[in-house]
């Protein structure tokens, strides 16, 4: 993995050797986009947080990793925790923050002791705390905060609500966290992996990062691969890689479909395996689930819908009421008593959810349903009994 090849401390040293504007310029030149899924340009987020007025700014690491099929952040936190903290410290330099928080999902409690130990060692080595690396007035420290088993808390405004001791319900945006974040302060929320790449970019340069990937999706990305393949695990691969190339890498050549992006992502059928995994084509936070020839695609859609119903915060109607209707539709399809007209109605309900839901959870909840209906029509209609 690329992270293993970076000299510890080189990124922070490089960041401290230049003015904050140069740090931002370097990240900007690299084209780094958020690795949590949405692909927002990292330099822009940091620049907005930097420009936002406020003497208390926060750097938050989103380690709530709850998207089904995603586990790369677990591996990064286990094997490269120093890089994540170094990246957070670089973000602190860039935006002028003194406080950092890691929001760790409760299911990863087994990582907490390790993370606390690494933080303690960094404090002892003057990599955290006051006057970091001997730079007068550069104070920054990081706390680990435990989540409590809620997927929607990975959404950045829900995460902030949760950190404030509230229910983890997404906020209306704007305002955005970059000006009105944790306790009303300017805040950048970034994915675990995003911080680690920021270290690499500071250590090795923007051109080194950009040498791989596509024009709009520069660099490498970690992929969490599971399901029907011979070599599940975390893969460090260039963005833009086609689904077929990735399948060859992981031993899943005979797949009939691949879920890219987890429950919130898209179901890619075999005929589209030449498409690329990149923000401009098939975007992903890194979850890749391989479906072998024998998988029942209706069961796939059912499992994901049950997930969304479980995890919806219930705040807004399209998501709260829509997902159970879609699930009902799947059960009808299973039984073979869903008419074509009703199926069409369900599809337009799905489209309404995509448009009218308040946060990404409800907006993405129907996507697998819709892609299965669209791409596996024969498989599904086989059960409608010709109605």
């Amino acid at each position: 993995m690329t992270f293993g090849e970076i000299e510890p401390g080189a990124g922070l040293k490089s960041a401290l050797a230049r003015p904050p504007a140069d740090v931002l310029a370097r990240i900007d030149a690299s084209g780094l986009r958020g690795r949590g899924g949405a692909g927002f340009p990292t330099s822009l987020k940091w620049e907005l947080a930097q420009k936002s007025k406020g003497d208390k700014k926060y750097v938050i690491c989103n380690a709530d990793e709850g998207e089904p099929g995603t586990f790369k952040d677990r591996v990064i936190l286990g094997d490269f925790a120093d890089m994540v903290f170094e990246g957070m410290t670089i973000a602190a330099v860039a935006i002028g923050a003194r406080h950092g928080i890691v929001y760790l999902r409760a299911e990863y409690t087994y990582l907490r002791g390790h993370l606390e130990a690494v933080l303690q060692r960094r404090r002892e080595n003057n990599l955290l705390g006051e006057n970091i690396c001997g730079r007068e007035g550069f104070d920054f420290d990081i706390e680990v905060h435990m989540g409590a088993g809620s997927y929607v808390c990975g959404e950045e405004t829900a995460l902030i609500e949760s950190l404030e001791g509230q229910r983890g319900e997404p906020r209306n945006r704007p305002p955005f966290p970059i000006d009105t974040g944790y306790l009303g302060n300017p805040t950048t929320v970034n994915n675990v992996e995003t911080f680690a790449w920021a270290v690499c970019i500071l250590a090795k340069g923007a051109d080194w990062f950009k040498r791989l990937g596509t024009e709009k999706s520069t660099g490498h990305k970690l992929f969490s691969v599971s399901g029907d393949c011979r070599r599940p695990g975390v893969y460090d691969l260039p963005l833009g890689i086609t689904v077929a190339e990735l399948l060859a890498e992981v031993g899943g050549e005979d797949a009939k479909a691949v879920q890219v992006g987890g429950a919130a992502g898209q179901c890619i059928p075999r005929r589209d395996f030449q498409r690329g995994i990149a923000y401009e084509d098939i975007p992903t936070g890194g979850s890749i689930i391989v479906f072998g020839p024998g998988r029942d695609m209706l069961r796939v859609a059912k499992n994901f819908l049950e997930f969304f119903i479980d995890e919806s915060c219930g705040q807004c109607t399209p998501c709260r009421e829509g997902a159970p209707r879609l699930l009902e539709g799947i059960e009808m399809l299973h039984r073979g008593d869903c008419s074509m007209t009703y199926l069409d109605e369900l599809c337009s309900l799905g489209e309404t959810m995509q448009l009218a839901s308040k946060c990404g959870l409800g907006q993405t909840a129907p996507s697998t349903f819709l892609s299965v209906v669209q791409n596996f029509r024969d498989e599904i209609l086989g059960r409608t009994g010709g109605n």
Partner: protein
Amino acid sequence: MPPTERLLSDETLDAIRAHFPRYPNRRAVVLPALHVVNEYLGCVPIRAVVEVADLLGLAPAEVQDTLSFYGFFKQDAPSGRVRIWVCRSLSCAALGGEDLLDYLCEKLGVQPGETTADGRVTLEVAECLGACDFAPAILVGTTLHKNMTREKIDALVASLEDSREDDLS
């Protein structure tokens, strides 16, 4: 009426207070406090909510409002001494997770969400545990168990029966 006895021990209250310096205000301590109570009592009964609110200077309704959002905290009855979370998400379900859940239900004689009669184990269903590369995966307390099989479940349940109470985490 005689003053009712406090539910939370001094030790529990101190463990909550230890979080104060780490947070900018008391409201932000709600979740860490609930975790502490849950660790000591295996649940967060309404009396504990009142006492936590008192300690944090909040209204009990504020703490209850937060608590009720997170399925993680049980309120009515304590969890068993160990909580087993079986992943139901796709990668695990596809590779035998559903069968494992049925097997555990049968072996422990409980349905998901229930605690065994001897109070040892609470069986829970979880969404993706972030361990799909080791599917099917389960969490036992805070320990990840990978690539589970019926045989491994047998060994796990036997070890829970053998172990003395204070060995369980």
